[in-house]
Structure formats: structure tokens, C-alpha cells
């Protein structure tokens, strides 16, 4: 016998000894080993070497030789086997062996998976079986770590129950923070992670009465008989076993594929999952869905809208959906700016998306530095509340008029950077002539804009003059240079476009002149690699995730490919589920012209959707005109709906089968705070420290709930895809594989990371800080920001010179739009185009005279942290308790309330032709007259009559918003464009 064969047999014997040892040391392991009586053989393909392992009631015996068995795991030869055994962490070798069919298994997939699960447990027994992780803090309490959308936390657990969830105070031994010196003062951020309400609410969400604790079946759904789809949303549920639930789901998957062909399955999920790179929907769920073949829901650029459909054409930045880079802008702002204009920008509410309250301490420095602030928002938002400064309150949806008025003052008074405009922009003259009225006879004067915006011409002039003479930062959206607010309205594209034009007039990139609001752009280390969730985790998806950027080299895994090429625009899901043809345009992060490509459904040769695999229940609160979503469940074209959800809320109760998922506090995961990857590369630079977290399993999953990973894995097993799905790794193993693909192993050992739970990346010294974003363009050098895009092919001239536009310049007159052909909805220069649902639509305005804005919520994150009987119910600005029910809040000015005879705190009906919602009224001077303010994203949909055809008292204001695209050639939501009326609720009517 050759040396390798001897060694192979020795290794196999070693596995036997370790199996025995683990079973004797850990009763939990012995219990798992007793689940199946079977024989597993590990052998060379020719059977010349090998060993069998026999399991009988948990007893493990083994003998040498490659006899027949229930499952036979084989290697091409002993050399191929040793290649894997001797380098257990070399997943590339393992993947290569699998891909080249030198490593495989014969026998039932589920049994093979079971054996792999034992081997996985055996490899990390101290953690997975001995539960030796976290810090013992005395009194029987262990302190674990986890990570949420709003920041990292310590989780204190006693007797298997969470005692408390707290921010992390960094230890003395953790990396020191950065210091910025500005105007002779030194500024250093606090030494702790500042988390937000969404995160501090977590204990109440974990222990919520709305948790789904068992698999459930709708009482009047029979997969083999009457399905009663029209009863979805009304029927109750009956508890069933996991096996029954999973069998139904797997059988339905197989059935619709065979009956209808490709495209019959569709899956969708909310924009954000609970945090964690392996458990995210773009990881485990994507791997499953690619493996079974699923009609892809094409997301609209939901929070970016106007930037993607508008601003992108002026300067490229396609990878950021039209928004600029924010590197080092915090330091530049502090050192060089004299003023910050917050325009539809409320970082104190939306936390820079994932940034918790990290930017707050920095914004307070503005006062110390004497930097002036101005706020433009129909609502005196929370940033304005905290910072003070001048508040200008335009009518919603008129930002494009206000910006033209500002440009008018700059042009007529010479208050702009003429050299920059001359040398670094294209097409200014055409825009200038339009503003001066040479094109349409209407000069866009401050007085002209006042008629549209209601912002006094004198104030507009004062603002324009100050802005045109002071070095000014423009903050848009929560993060300061992207997403939310005015960009999500009928005029959103023109507004976002005009923001770029204003910045171009002021010479963006000049010291003190840039975009930001002290949220994004901290001096953190962008060179230390850790992936964001959008980089695809363990999805294996190189086409529709960011995996191709870094992770496919760094974290070898089997590729997955979705063979169903059909897509449905997300905002058209309801019509698609009803089998109707729909279309929309692509969201493209590759190039600005990518968005010119239409999508059609059904695609040629594809089935319409018959099976809907829905994750969570957020769309009724977050999409638009959402009675559509409700009604689309209640019809027979949609034959089967499964919802995998943590909480019974929103759409979950429209499913036929409900699969209970657990939170990320009940399973393993790994992630970095605020690192999403994808459209916001280096999104962690809104933080004060970079923090990677081992998301420790703090408690066992509640009830029978399971990790999303495990649910997908269980379904995969029923399609013989189990081993392909897991590659023999558990979710914990995938965390380790991901860890090994990052730069973390250069600074901390896996074992130590698992135990301590987090790592703080040192901030670079001053010499290594990133150059200020867009400065390179101002200075005329090659692009020197630490981001790869634009792609080389997207430059018109030399690589990394200029912007990714046809002229290589910032374009006032957009060449891409000219190439597309003139479109009055989106002309090549940005113009004032009145909102398609506002004061100019006089008939509708006469009926529904209030403009409703529904910004991203402050105390919840999409539908996370809302309802669920959460602590947030007690926040006075979040929901209001009236007669034992927590109602969503809308805000009206004292004038609008009194003219309707409405009082603070009473229940009102907000309505239009699309629906009606009962809310508690807050009368506040913070909202300008003529406007209703209520946040988007109620988690609760609670119709008081027939679902889809009655008043909702849960608070889903998106029942009222239009499903119209901002512009036809887009796929977009204009959620801040909505005409409504408000009246006292007499508590009788249930009809719309």
C-alpha cells in the first residue's frame, strides 16, 4: 500500500476517534448522532482505500474498507483526499475538487448532509457544543456581541434569556479614534458605538408577542384540494410541523416548475434584512433561489430615485446610483467650509442609513466651529431642531423651482465659479439661457420661484447671496450626499439634477465646497478589507450581487446561477402576480445608460408567477398604492404563497404557509457595522470607528423558529440540493470562511474574534487619510479616490481622467439624455416641471388639497422596530396610544387642523381615491401649512373591513401614494408626492 493510501486510512481512523471522543464528551453531539441509523463510507473512487462509519442509536462503530453503505463520500484518489484533509481551511482546493468531480457523494442528499453536519460540529466542539464563547461577567451572566442595522451591541444573557442589550464602550486596548484639527481646536469622537432607537428596541422585538414561533398553514388552504386564495389575509392559521411545512413548500416548488416551466416561482424580500453577511437575503436566500430558479424581482433604486434617474446623467457615478463620493469630506468641511445647507436632509432622523447616532456628536461640532447652518424642508426636522439655524419651508415637490431661483441670483449677480464652469463643465450656456428666460420667456427669478415654493423671494436671495459668497457644503438626504427626501417625489429627478448643477456652479471639490452634512466622510481606514452585505455572503451569485468585486477571489465557494431570466419590476409585483403584462426600466450601477433598458414581463417563453416565496411582510408599508399588493394576494392566478418571517405582520398573514425565522440574536453571523457594499461603497465612513462583529448566537431560537440559513438549507435538502447549498458548512462555518476572506486574520485570530466578539480597525494616521472626494476633479488630476468605479470602459478618454460622461465633464446639458432622444419629462437640461400630483393638478388638488410627505421613519428602520408590541410604541413621536391601540401619527399645522375642526391627539382619517388610513393627529407648528407629514413604513397593516378594500388603522400611509413612476422612462417611486384630505374619524366607516 502506498504512503498516501496509508495516510488516507490513518486520517479516516482519526475521524472515527474524534467522532467517538466528541460523542462521549458532548451529550448534545451524541443526541445528534442518534438521529439516524445508517452507514457512511468515505473512500477513494476505486474503493481501494476507505472506511465505513456505522451509527446505531447513537453508537458509532467503524471499520476499514470501502463496503457498500447508505452514503458513500468519495475522492478521485487518496491524493485528492489528502489535498483536502491536510489543508482543511483551503476551500479553493475543496471547491476545485468538487467542480472537477474529484470529490462527491452517492446516496441520499439529506443523509449526506446529516453526516456533514456532524463533521461540522466535531470541528468546533468547544463553541458549538460546549458553548464556550462570550465573556463571563459574573452572577451567571454572559456577555455576547451582536450587530444590528443601527449598530453593534453587547448582549447580556442569563439562564438563556436576554437581560439587556447595550451600546459597546470600547476598551482601552481597542484602537484609538481619529482626531481632526480645525481652526485651532482638536476634535475626537466618543469612545463608544452610538446606537439608535431601532437597535435599543431590539429586546422587545426579540421577545415580541408577534413572533411566529411555529410553522403554520392557513386553515382553509389545502395543497391537494381547495386552496381558497381569495381568503388570504382573512383566514386563521393552524400550527403544523416543520416537516409538513417544508414538504408542502418543496412539493409546490416542484409542482409549479413541472406544470408551468421556468418563471413560475418568484421571490422577494424587504430592502433590508436583520444584519449579518451570511444570513442576509442576498446570501442564503439568494443561493437557494438561484438553485431552484426564480423570477427575479428587479428593485427600483428605492431611496435614491432622483439621483439615479436624474443626477447620474450630469456626472456619472453610476456605481453610486448618481451620488458623489464622500471620502474625507468631514475634515474638509470642518477645516474649510463656512456654511452647510441641509436640503431635504435630516441625518438626526435617518442616521446616515446604518450609522446609528454616530454623526450626531460630529454635527454638534459645527456650533463650536461657528459654521452656519440652513435647513430647507417643509418640516422643521430633527436636525434643524437640534442645530438651530435658518429654516426655509418650501411646499413639497418644488425643490426644482427653488434651485433655479438660486441659480438665477448667482448668474445675475456673478456669484459662481466662472473658471470651473468654463473649464470643467459642458452645456452651461444652454441652462443659463433657460434660467434667464431666453428659452421660454420666463426668467426663473426669486419672485417666480416664490409662486411655486412659497419661500419668500427675499429669503431666497439672502440664501443665494450667502451661499454664493461663502464656502458651502450642501447636505442632501440623511447621509448628506444621497438618498431619501426630495429625491423621492414627482420632481425628484429634476431636483437631484439641479443639486449637481448648483454644486458645479460653485466648483465642487474646492476646499470647503462639496456635498455632505458631517455624516459621511470620516477619516477611517478604507484600505482594510471587509465585505458589505451586498457583496453576496455565501450566495455564490457573481451576477446579481457584489461578489465579483472582491469575494469571489477571497472566499471560494461554488457558483450559483439563476437559470430563470425573467424579471419583474418591484413596483409592478401586484400586476405581475395577477398575470398581467408589466414593464419597467433597469436600475443600473454599471453605467448611466444602463437605465435605458426596459424589462418586460412575462418574458418570452416564461410562465407568469404561480408561486410566491416572500420574505417578511414589509411592502404594504413601504411600496406605493399598496392596496394593490393586498389585492394581488387574494386571487387565484397566484396558486401558492409561502412567507418566511420573524413576525406576524404586514404581508405575512397573506401566506398559505408561514415559516418562522429567528432574529440574528438567535443564530451565528458575522458583519461590519454600516458596511453595505453595493451602491454605497465604503459606507462605513459615516461612523466614528470601523467595527467588525462576530454576531454571536446569544440565545436559542425562540419556539420552533430557525435561522434563515437553516430554513433555506432544509428546503434545499428536500430538492437534493442540500450539499450543494451548504458545501458541508454550517452557518457558523460560513462565518469562519467569510472571516478568512477578509483582512481580519492579519490582526486577530479566529478563536479570539469568536470569543471577544468584535474588532476595531485603527484609524489611519493623517498622512494616510483618503483624499477629499471630487477634489481630484477640481484640481484636474487623475481620480485618486479609493474606489474602482467607473469601469475603465465608461471613461471617454484616458482612464481615470474626468467624469464618466461623454464629454468627460460635469454636464449641464446631458449628452446621455440627448442620445436617448428628447423627453419632455426629462429634458437634457434640468428644468422646472411641475409635480404631476400637486397644486398644478387643479382638479385633484381641489378634492385633496393637502400634500402628504412620507419620509423614512426616525425610530424604526423600514418596518423594523415598528409595531410588534415594541418599546418604540411608547415613544410619543412614533405612535400614539388612543383607546388601547397604538396609532401611527400624522402631523398637521395648527391652521390646517383648526380649519378642519381637528384637535391634537384625536383620530383622523387620511384619505384619497386610493385608500384611507386612520392615524392619530399631532398638531405642530413644525410642519408648514398645506402639508401632511407622516413617516413611511408602518409594519402593521390592519384593515378594519375587507383587506384591500377598507380603511387601515395600522398606519400604512403608502396605501395612499401613487403607483405612477416619477417619469415614464424609469422604475421609481414618488412617495413624497401625494395629495390627500384629512378629516375627523367618526369610527363608523370601514369602506375606502
Amino acid at each position: 500500500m502506498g504512503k498516501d493510501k496509508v495516510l488516507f486510512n490513518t486520517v479516516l481512523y482519526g475521524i472515527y476517534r474524534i467522532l467517538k471522543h466528541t460523542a462521549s464528551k458532548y451529550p448534545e453531539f451524541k443526541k445528534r448522532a442518534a438521529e439516524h441509523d445508517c452507514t457512511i463510507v468515505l473512500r477513494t473512487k476505486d474503493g481501494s482505500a476507505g472506511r465505513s462509519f456505522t451509527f446505531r442509536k447513537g453508537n458509532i462503530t467503524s471499520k476499514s474498507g470501502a463496503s457498500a453503505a447508505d452514503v458513500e463520500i468519495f475522492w478521485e484518489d487518496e491524493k485528492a483526499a489528502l489535498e483536502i484533509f491536510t489543508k482543511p481551511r483551503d476551500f479553493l482546493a475543496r471547491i476545485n475538487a468538487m467542480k472537477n468531480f474529484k470529490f462527491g457523494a452517492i446516496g441520499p442528499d439529506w443523509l449526506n448532509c446529516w453526516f456533514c453536519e456532524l463533521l461540522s460540529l466535531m470541528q468546533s466542539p468547544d463553541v458549538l457544543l460546549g458553548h464556550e464563547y462570550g465573556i463571563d461577567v459574573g452572577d451567571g451572566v454572559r456577555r455576547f456581541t451582536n450587530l444590528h442595522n443601527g449598530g453593534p451591541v453587547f448582549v447580556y444573557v442569563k439562564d438563556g434569556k436576554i437581560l439587556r442589550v447595550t451600546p459597546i464602550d470600547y476598551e482601552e486596548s481597542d484602537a484609538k479614534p481619529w482626531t481632526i484639527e480645525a481652526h485651532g481646536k482638536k476634535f475626537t469622537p466618543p469612545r463608544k458605538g452610538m446606537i439608535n432607537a431601532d437597535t435599543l428596541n431590539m429586546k422587545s422585538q426579540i421577545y415580541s408577542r408577534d413572533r411566529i414561533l411555529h410553522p403554520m398553514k392557513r386553515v382553509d388552504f389545502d395543497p391537494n384540494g381547495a386552496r381558497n386564495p381569495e381568503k388570504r389575509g382573512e383566514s386563521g392559521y393552524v400550527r403544523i410541523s416543520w416537516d409538513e411545512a417544508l414538504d408542502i413548500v418543496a412539493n409546490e416548488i416542484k409542482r409549479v416548475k413541472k406544470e408551468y416551466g421556468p418563471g413560475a416561482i418568484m421571490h422577494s424580500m424587504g430592502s433590508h434584512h436583520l444584519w449579518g453577511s451570511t444570513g442576509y437575503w442576498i446570501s442564503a436566500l439568494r443561493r437557494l433561489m438561484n438553485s431552484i430558479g426564480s423570477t427575479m424581482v428587479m428593485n427600483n433604486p428605492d431611496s435614491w430615485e432622483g439621483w439615479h434617474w436624474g443626477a447620474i446623467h450630469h456626472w456619472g457615478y453610476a456605481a453610486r446610483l448618481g451620488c458623489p463620493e464622500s471620502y474625507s469630506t468631514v475634515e474638509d468641511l470642518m477645516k474649510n467650509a463656512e456654511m452647510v445647507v441641509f436640503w431635504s436632509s435630516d441625518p438626526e432622523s435617518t442616521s446616515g442609513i446604518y450609522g446609528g447616532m454616530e454623526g450626531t456628536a460630529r454635527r454638534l461640532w459645527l456650533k463650536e466651529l461657528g459654521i452656519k447652518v440652513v435647513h430647507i424642508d417643509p418640516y422643521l426636522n430633527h436636525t434643524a431642531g437640534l442645530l438651530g439655524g435658518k429654516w426655509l419651508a418650501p411646499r413639497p415637490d418644488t425643490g426644482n423651482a427653488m434651485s433655479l431661483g438660486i441659480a438665477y441670483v448667482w448668474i445675475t449677480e456673478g456669484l459662481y465659479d466662472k473658471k470651473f464652469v468654463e473649464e470643467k463643465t459642458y452645456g452651461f450656456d444652454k441652462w443659463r439661457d433657460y434660467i434667464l428666460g431666453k428659452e421660454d420667456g420666463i426668467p426663473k427669478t426669486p419672485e417666480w420661484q416664490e409662486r411655486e415654493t412659497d419661500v419668500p423671494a427675499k429669503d431666497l436671495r439672502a440664501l443665494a447671496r450667502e451661499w454664493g459668497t461663502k464656502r458651502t457644503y450642501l447636505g442632501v438626504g440623511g447621509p448628506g450626499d444621497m438618498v431619501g427626501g426630495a429625491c423621492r417625489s414627482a420632481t425628484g429627478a429634476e431636483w437631484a439634477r439641479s443639486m449637481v448643477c448648483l454644486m458645479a456652479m460653485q466648483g465642487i471639490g474646492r476646499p470647503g465646497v462639496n456635498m455632505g452634512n458631517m455624516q459621511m466622510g470620516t477619516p477611517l481606514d478604507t484600505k482594510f478589507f471587509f465585505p458589505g452585505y451586498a457583496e453576496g455572503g455565501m450566495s455564490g451569485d457573481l451576477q446579481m450581487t457584489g461578489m465579483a468585486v472582491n469575494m469571489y477571489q477571497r472566499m471560494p465557494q461554488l457558483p450559483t446561477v439563476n437559470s430563470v431570466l425573467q424579471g419583474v419590476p418591484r413596483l409592478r409585483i401586484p400586476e405581475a402576480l395577477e398575470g398581467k403584462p408589466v414593464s419597467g426600466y433597469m436600475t443600473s450601477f454599471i453605467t448611466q445608460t444602463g437605465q435605458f433598458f426596459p424589462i418586460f414581463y412575462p418574458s418570452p417563453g416564461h410562465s407568469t408567477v404561480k408561486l410566491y416565496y416572500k420574505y417578511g411582510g414589509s411592502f404594504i408599508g413601504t411600496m406605493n398604492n399598496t392596496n394593490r399588493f393586498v389585492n394581488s394576494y387574494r386571487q387565484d392566478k397566484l396558486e401558492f404563497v409561502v412567507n418566511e418571517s420573524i413576525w406576524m405582520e404586514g404581508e405575512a398573514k397573506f401566506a398559505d404557509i408561514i415559516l418562522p425565522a429567528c432574529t440574528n440574536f438567535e443564530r451565528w453571523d458575522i458583519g461590519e457595522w454600516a458596511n453595505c457594499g453595493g451602491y454605497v461603497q465604503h459606507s462605513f465612513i459615516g461612523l466614528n470607528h470601523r467595527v467588525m462583529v462576530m454576531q454571536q448566537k446569544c440565545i436559542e431560537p425562540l419556539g420552533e423558529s430557525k435561522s434563515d440559513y437553516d430554513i433555506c438549507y432544509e428546503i434545499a435538502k428536500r430538492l437534493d440540493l442540500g450539499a450543494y447549498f451548504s458545501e458541508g458548512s454550517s452557518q457558523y462555518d460560513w462565518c469562519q470562511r467569510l472571516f478568512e476572506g477578509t483582512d481580519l486574520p492579519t490582526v486577530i485570530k479566529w478563536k479570539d474574534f469568536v470569543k471577544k466578539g468584535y474588532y476595531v480597525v485603527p484609524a489611519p494616521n493623517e498622512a494616510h487619510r483618503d483624499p477629499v472626494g471630487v477634489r481630484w476633479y477640481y484640481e484636474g488630476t487623475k481620480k485618486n479616490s479609493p474606489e474602482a468605479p467607473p469601469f475603465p470602459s465608461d471613461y471617454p478618454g484616458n482612464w481615470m481622467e474626468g467624469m464618466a460622461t461623454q464629454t468627460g465633464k460635469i454636464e449641464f446639458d446631458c449628452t446621455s439624455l440627448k442620445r436617448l432622444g428628447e423627453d419632455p419629462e426629462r429634458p437634457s437640461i434640468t428644468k422646472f416641471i411641475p409635480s404631476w400630483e400637486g397644486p398644478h393638478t387643479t382638479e385633484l388638488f381641489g378634492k385633496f388639497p393637502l400634500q402628504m410627505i412620507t419620509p423614512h421613519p426616525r425610530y424604526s428602520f423600514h418596518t423594523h422596530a415598528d409595531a410588534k408590541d415594541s418599546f418604540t410604541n411608547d415613544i410619543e413621536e412614533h405612535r400614539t396610544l388612543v383607546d388601547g391601540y397604538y396609532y401611527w401619527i400624522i402631523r398637521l399645522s395648527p391652521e390646517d387642523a383648526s380649519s378642519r375642526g381637528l384637535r391634537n391627539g384625536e383620530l383622523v382619517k387620511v384619505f384619497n381615491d386610493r385608500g384611507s388610513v386612520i392615524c392619530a393627529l399631532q398638531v405642530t407648528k413644525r410642519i408648514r401649512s398645506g402639508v401632511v407629514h407622516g413617516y413611511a413604513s408602518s409594519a402593521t397593516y390592519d384593515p378594519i373591513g375587507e383587506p384591500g378594500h377598507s380603511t387601515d388603522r395600522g398606519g400604512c400611509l403608502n396605501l395612499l401614494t401613487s403607483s405612477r413612476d416619477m417619469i415614464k422612462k424609469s422604475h421609481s417611486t414618488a412617495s413624497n408626492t401625494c395629495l390627500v384630505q384629512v378629516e375627523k374619524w367618526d369610527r363608523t366607516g370601514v369602506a375606502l
Partner: protein
Amino acid sequence: MKKFHMIINVERCEDCNACLLSCKDEHYDNTFPGYTVPQPRHGQKWINITRKERGAGSLMDVFYLPKPCQHCDDAPCVKKSDGAITKRSDGIVLIDPVKAKGKKQLVGTCPYGAIHWNEELKVAQKCTMCAHLLDGKWKQTRCVQACPTEALRMVYLEDDEWNALARQEKLQPLNPEFGTRPGALYRNLDRFTKAFIAGSVTAAKNGIEDCVEGARVVLSKDSKSVAELTTDNYGDFKFDSLPENSGEYRLTVESKEFGSSKLMVKLEDSVYLGKVIVS
């Protein structure tokens, strides 16, 4: 003997509710024997935040007042509790969860409304200043730890040090008329309790209305000048920290370029006068 004190900065509170949520996180479903029974899931706000909107329009402002138990030196609740409520030597006022059982009347003893009734467990309860944590290894209460703006701070000082700090930072008690000598004091309380008079000075030039920057605005009362300001580029002025309902004031506005204006203002709540036209 050192005591714990809370310092609450009204200007720094933005109603993020990190304090309320961390308090609920700490106390919901947790029992800390000797300190408190669990807080109910909903309804009790051991730190209660109230909102005040002052003025209107472009110069309005909004402030928040977080109100926990004031841990008074001369606490009426202690006096009227028959030993169920005590003030510890470190300044923390604690309700004994055993002795307070069934004593609903304790709720009414606090003029600040800081004592709550737990209907389910039939016991009075309130903010413990996280004494169970401070008696262990913790240096801060949960609410102070979670506050992103340092609107909530806490100090552990000897009485003379505390008094010196209070003077230095101009700390004020909330509702001094209660006479309870609170252990918690406020900064910038004026933002909540006082009023302002504000306006925007404008003038017409060649038929175009514009903001008047640099105008001198004098506020006087009973013929005596109270304060003087210069308008900013929006023509704005704002006289703050005036007592509410303090009667008639005279405003004199003078712009070298555009002329002057005089007006009388009766101050009740904060008032934004809107346009003040000089000619």
C-alpha cells in the same frame, strides 16, 4: 460623602429616545431585588421627554425636556412614605419594592410625577438611577450611556464640588417652586421655560423686497433697554430668555440704509413677528 447627580442639558436633547429605550431595555422583564420590580412593557416612562415648540414660522424652535426622578435632597416622597422610600447616602432615592407594595398613594407624593403605579404587581416604582448597576461595576446609568449628545451626564461628587460645578455651569433646578432640592439639575432650562421675541427685518429697494442685514434692534421695557442685537443676512433677530407673560416690550429697529421702525410687543408665549418693515 460623594453623591451621584444627573446634569440634563435641554439644548442638547433631540428626542432620540435612546434614554427611554435603554431604560425600558434594562427594566422590562428584569427583577433587581432590593432595587425594583420589573417595569411593565408599556406605559411607564421613568425618563419622560416632553416637547416645547416656541414661536412660529422661519424662526421657531423646538426643545425637549427629559425628566427622570430628580433624586431630591428634600424629597416629599421620602417624607410621606413611612420608610418605603429612602434617600441613600450616595444621593439615590429608592423605593423599597417590598415596603411600597400596595401603597398607591406614593404616586401622588412626587410633584414631578416621577412615581408610577405598577397595576399588575400593585407596587409603586420609579427611576432607580440604575443603582443596581452603579452598586456593581457600572460607572453610568443606562440612559447616560446611550445618550448620543451628552444631553444626559452624571457626576459623582462631594457636595462642595457639586455646588461649585452647578455655579460654574449655571445649572438650574426644574420647578424650583417645589422646594425639593433636586439632585438632578438642568442646563439651558431657559430654552424650555423662557420666551423669545423674534422678527425678520425687511425693506423695499427699487420695488424689490429684501432682507435687511446689519440693522440695529433694541428691545426695551419700561423705557429701559433690555437687550440689543444686529440682524443677520436674513434680517433676523431673536431676543431669547425673556420671562413668559412678561408684558409689553418696545422694539426699535434702525437701518442706516433703509430707515427705521418701532413697534410694541406684548409677550405671552414666544413670538415671531414675521416681517418687520423698515422705511
